């Protein structure tokens, strides 16, 4: 599974430009599902047909996109200026590298001045060009870039850029591979534009109109020095979301996920996230309302070049996804 995680986290896929991630995933799962399609918003939707006539429709969603930058200006010396695609903290960018779709690499640095006044307007990207013409031959205004960083295996702990949310994608890919016949029809959505406002999940949920929607996404932790006050820790299992800013999990769904975890001896913890949202926030408000929940993967240093997860949590999430996929949703309806 670590190889899947490596491949997915090293792929290029800023919001709106998830093509490469979509291709990589389609290739990984094509022999294990009944149908694969891409919709107008670019969501990759894989369907595994259920075997039971009374089976329900379950949508699993993990977002394919990652945070990045968009080039807004190229000056006469060849330096690029940029804005954010999704949430970027300027102080995490200084000295980091970015990569564009054609492979061009650049270094982010800052203008002189007090760090207290730092904002994205004061940062620039140096792609090694000596003139505007040279820069424009490699990168154009309006082009998207991502943070450039390789995957690192630290044993139980794994570090990479875009664990948010390629780890969710990897969990779905692994679950797809492990699942045999299921009573329920499963829709695996690798959604787009989550980082800019849960956009892909909204349109795909409308089209699929599932009985239950489950998002797989990372969540923050409180287990670091002087960290935020938050109960979630790396290594304590799959996190069942209770609340974030996009959704209050329906108590029935929370209880359903908890019971599945208990019955199957899957390590789990509860998550209350004060700020942030997931695809489930969009799914549960679609059409006349859809039952939805989120299985979160605890992750340190979210929205930086080095997002860290624990492989044991990841495996617990795979098990919980499989348990949901094969469950009887009768009691939930």
């Amino acid at each position, binding site marked *: 599974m670590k190889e899947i995680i490596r491949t997915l986290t090293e792929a290029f896929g800023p*919001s*709106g*430009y998830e093509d490469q991630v979509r291709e990589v995933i389609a290739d990984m799962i094509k022999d294990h599902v009944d149908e694969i399609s891409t*919709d*107008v*918003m670019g969501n990759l939707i894989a369907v595994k047909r259920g075997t039971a006539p009374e089976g329900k429709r379950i949508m699993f969603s993990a977002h394919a996109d990652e945070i990045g930058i*968009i080039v*807004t*200006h190229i*000056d006469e010396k060849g330096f690029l*200026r940029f*804005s*954010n*695609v999704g949430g970027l903290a300027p102080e995490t960018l200084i000295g980091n590298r970015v990569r564009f779709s054609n492979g061009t690499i650049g270094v982010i640095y800052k203008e002189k001045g007090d760090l207290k006044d730092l904002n994205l*307007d004061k940062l620039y990207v140096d792609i090694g060009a000596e003139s505007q013409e040279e820069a424009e031959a490699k990168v*154009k*205004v*309006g082009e998207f870039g991502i943070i450039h960083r390789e995957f690192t295996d630290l044993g139980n702990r794994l570090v990479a850029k875009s664990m948010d949310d390629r780890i969710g994608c990897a969990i779905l890919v692994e679950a797809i591979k492990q699942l045999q016949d299921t009573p329920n029809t499963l829709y695996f959505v690798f959604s787009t*534009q989550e980082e*800019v*406002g849960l*956009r892909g999940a*909204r*349109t*795909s949920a*409308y*089209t699929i109109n599932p009985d239950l929607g489950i998002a797989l996404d990372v969540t923050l932790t409180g287990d670091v020095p002087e960290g935020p006050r938050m109960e979630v820790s790396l290594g304590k299992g799959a996190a069942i979301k209770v609340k974030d800013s996009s959704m209050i999990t329906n108590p029935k769904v929370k209880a359903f996920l908890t019971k599945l975890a208990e019955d199957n001896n899957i390590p789990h913890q509860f998550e209350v996230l004060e700020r942030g949202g997931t695809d489930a926030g969009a799914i549960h408000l679609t059409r006349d309302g859809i039952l939805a929940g989120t299985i979160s993967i605890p992750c340190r240093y979210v929205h930086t070049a080095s997002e860290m997860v624990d492989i044991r949590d990841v495996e617990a999430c795979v098990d919980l996804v499989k348990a949901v996929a094969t469950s009887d949703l009768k009691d939930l309806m």
Partner: protein
Amino acid sequence: MLLRKLTEACGAPGQEGEVRALIRSEIEGYVDEIRTDALGNLIAVKNPSAPGPKVMLAAHMDEVALMILGIEKNGLLRFRPIGGIDPRVLVAKTVLVGEKKVPGVIGSKPIHLQRPEERQRPLSIDELAIDIGAKSQEEAEKVVNLGDCAYFATKFEEFGQDKIKAKALDDRVGCALLIELLKQNYDIPVYGVFTVQEEVGLRGAGVAAYQIQPDVAIVLEGTTASDVPGSDPHKHATSVGKGPAITIMDRTVITHPPLVRRLIELAEEHNIPYQIRRTNTGGTDAGQIQLTAGGTKAAVIAVPCRYIHSAASVMSKKDYEAAFRLTSVYLQDLQEREGN
């Protein structure tokens, strides 16, 4: 001139009646169907039953305005902005209030009476009031109702080589483009939608798109040009005179990449000037249209306007003409590629 009539008409968010009636009179006879929906969107359709991709063209009718929320004993009107207005652009502007277009002026304490520290900071909305020349609350209440809106009393004017100065170019410039586009002939179904309440949260566009469920949507806008004093070159969103702006991303949308690529290719093939919008701030109806129902391919073509959301914004007729050509060429191209 069409743009004169459109910019001198008044239409705050939710109060677009005058603009809607004007547009309706301009397009009647050129479209096969025309209706107003529950929110007030004006939906005009050409070739509703023709085969081929369903195109939605959208421009918003509403403009930023000031809503009257109180009348003082002395007849002065208290107000709040509807949509984004910088209070600093308001002082001493003349306005027209309500459907009767009662003339007024936004007054404040004169410099003689200001304390030194008051001169150092901009006046807040609470320190401003609209004076309609009424001597008492009773007299003011005869011509103004709470909830009426005040609009900048700006006359449309052409100046310079090719420039236009007017209020409400955001988005009457889009309305003008859309009216002219609806006067042309097409073989595919074209839905021209003049939307409401864009300035307060893209509210009309989503419900209109839900009714239509188009295959492709192009939003026609007036967008912010920041080639103005005090702005660094790397913060220039768009520049007036360099062609219509094509949006890649803003706060509400990442436009459909293949659609944007096609617009750029067509602009280059036909020698139509264009620029990429160089900021990710702001939002347009495309944000709602794209996410309606199962999703729609959406793009934005915008005419750059300086001093947007103020009493007088400035645009170039050349940018307008290029925006018209680009949209028109795109519709022809779509018809040839995907029409019957």
